[in-house]
């Protein structure tokens, strides 16, 4: 059927393709503000780790009409083009025609509020979460919160999101595995209560355009999927994608060390074979299942004492909105942040007297 013999990607026209043959224009004489310097655009980036250099499709051809020979109408009436960098100021306010409070990220403040009310007793009485260094979380502007990840069904994400929202009154968006979105009911609830698929462009918009707090676990599924005997030993921090996103968005990374999650649902045994068959990242047998039974054990956490330490924000001395950042620089920064969290964990464990009482 495919007469042109093209794969889907080759066949798609990209803006760059259409723009390529056009001649390069002199900068627009209109006082339209600084023109975006070449190569300061993120918007053409695919997934961070697959970014390819693209000819800047937006900047050149839009500046002024191409063929002034057409007469009077075409040239003069074109509104001056603003540079790419959107600071969020030109975005329209929430439409007053809306009848629900679901935002562009699927989050509903009403539902999130309900979830907070229901979760608060668990946060306060079961996990007895205690924070230090909360003043390191910026009270305004975007920031990427980065934490260690643990427990077969991770208990750290709700604790961090709940804690910061409660203590600072700032919403936190939890960047997570796409798979959530594919689940009926669960996926919708997840997104209404602040979950966002961790697509690099989603993260960029949240941090840069919307200036929000976003939480990410760079270990991914490797963190919660590790055995109890490996507890508090950080896995690889992905491919440093989180650093790249923070650099591009021009926001700091705020490292958070979490103690307690590991013991709330430890994995005693796991089966790679079953996981592969079911298409899951890991298939664990947890200590909770041994104690509470196979079903209740899936939802019942042990009452481990949670201690969370927010480390000082890490700022990157690079210009935002670049298409690429030096790989070595990104990896170094990712490693530094990993070490910061690892050291903080060791320090906190040194001072912990009991898993249950802290």
């Amino acid at each position, binding site marked *: *059927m*495919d*007469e*042109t013999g*093209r794969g*889907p*990607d*080759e*066949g*798609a*026209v*990209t*803006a*760059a*393709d*259409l*723009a*390529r*043959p*056009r001649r390069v224009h002199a900068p627009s004489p209109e006082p339209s503000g600084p023109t975006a310097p070449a190569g300061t655009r993120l*918007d*053409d980036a*695919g997934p961070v780790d697959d970014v390819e250099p693209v000819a800047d*499709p*937006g900047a050149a*051809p*839009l500046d002024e*009409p*191409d*063929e002034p020979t057409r007469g009077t*109408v*075409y040239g003069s*009436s074109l*509104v*001056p*083009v603003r540079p790419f960098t*959107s600071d969020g100021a030109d*975005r*329209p306010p*929430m*439409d007053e*025609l*809306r*009848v*629900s409070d*679901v935002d*562009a990220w*699927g989050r509903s403040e009403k539902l999130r509020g309900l979830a907070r009310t229901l979760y608060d007793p668990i946060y306060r009485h079961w996990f007895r979460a205690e924070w230090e260094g909360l003043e390191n979380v910026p009270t305004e502007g975007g920031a990427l919160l980065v934490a260690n990840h643990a427990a077969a069904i991770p208990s750290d994400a709700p604790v961090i999101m709940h804690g910061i929202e409660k203590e600072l009154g700032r919403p936190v968006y939890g960047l997570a595995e*796409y798979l959530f*979105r594919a689940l*009926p*009911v*669960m996926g*919708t609830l997840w997104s209404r209560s602040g979950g*966002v*698929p961790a*697509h690099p*462009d*989603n993260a960029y*918009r949240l941090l840069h355009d919307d200036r929000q707090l976003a939480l990410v676990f760079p270990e991914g599924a490797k963190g919660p999927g590790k055995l109890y005997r490996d507890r508090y030993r950080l896995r690889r921090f992905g491919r440093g994608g989180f650093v790249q996103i923070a650099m591009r968005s021009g926001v700091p990374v705020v490292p958070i060390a979490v103690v307690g999650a590991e013991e709330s649902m430890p994995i005693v045994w796991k089966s790679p074979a079953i996981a592969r068959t079911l298409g899951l990242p890991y298939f664990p047998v947890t200590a909770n299942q041994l104690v509470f039974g196979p079903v209740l054990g899936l939802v019942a956490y042990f009452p481990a004492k949670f201690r969370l330490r927010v480390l000082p924000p890490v700022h990157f001395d690079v210009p935002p909105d670049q298409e690429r950042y030096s790989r070595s620089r990104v990896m170094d920064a990712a490693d530094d942040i990993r070490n910061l969290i690892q050291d903080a964990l060791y320090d906190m464990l040194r001072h912990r007297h009991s898993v249950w009482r802290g």
Partner: protein
Amino acid sequence: MGMRVLITGLGTFWGSRLAQQVEALDDVDVVIGVDTTEPRLPMERTEFVRTDSSYSILNRIVSAAGIDTILHTHLIVDSTRQTGRTLHEINVIGTMNLLAAAGAPDSMVRKLVVKSSTLAYGATYQDPYFFRESMGRVRGPRTRVERSLLETAGLVRDFALDNPHVVVTKLRFSNVLGGDLGTVFSRALRLPFVPEVLGFDPPMQFVHEDDVIGALLFATRHEIPGIFNVGGDGTLPWSEVRSIVGKRSIPLPPVLTSVAAEGLRALRVIDLPPETLALLRYGRGVDNSRYKRAGFRYRYSSVGAVTAFAEGLRLERTVGERHPAYRYERDVETFFRHSPSVRPAATEPSEGEPERAG
């Protein structure tokens, strides 16, 4: 010298409405519309030429009339209205012949505007919440419409590369709503029960039909090569769309959705092409800022388009069809256009809407 415009798909709603707007422009000398079917709306000076669906005689029309601007509105994006073969004929072969005519050695064509669809981006759980123009689909096309759109995209890209002297603008329109026309979603929302996939409430984006016409006209009047997304600001959950329109839902099961949809379609309970099922699961948003930076101003946001549609629906429920039926009579139209007995005053635009630059 004014523009000499060729519009494809004059027999469609888009073609007819666009022709009405284009012929009202002062700097347009000639408007020629081609299609297999007759125009749906009355027009003052647009010449209608009946062709076969794949436009095999276009070459002659383009050179004989000295066409310099082609507005290609006739890409089918709603597969329920055509068989697969017709769809391929119209979208792929039609575009191929059109581009061959436009690229002929003696061709005067200097501008090509293509009306495409954000259907080209697909809908999967791995998508970003807002597609930018340079992003490709996450997965290959599944349905005939999507395949034909990608093939068409390849043809348009090749044409743009081979003909650097032609300004090629491609507009990808989001889901269109409005009082006047039947689209996949306007039909779905007219039914007593609106289909949804159980457990999913995806973010949807809409563009009002006036903005579609405005966007096409804007591209006609300005030199803006490249690909542009056209969609109203913001997204809103499908459940909110339903409650604005005031309809109940009929849930489709999250597994075997297409089988259930096929069954309900056979029973005429719902009317959904297969490519919208994924949309009802994951939704789709596009970044519309590039066309805004080019100078286009929207009149409706996504929720505005839905609200306008709902208002139209209420009016229609009370007073019935608002527009008097128009029937194209070749003899009458020829008489008004070409008979020496008709005085020039009679050709003044009478009821054409005021033109909008967007």
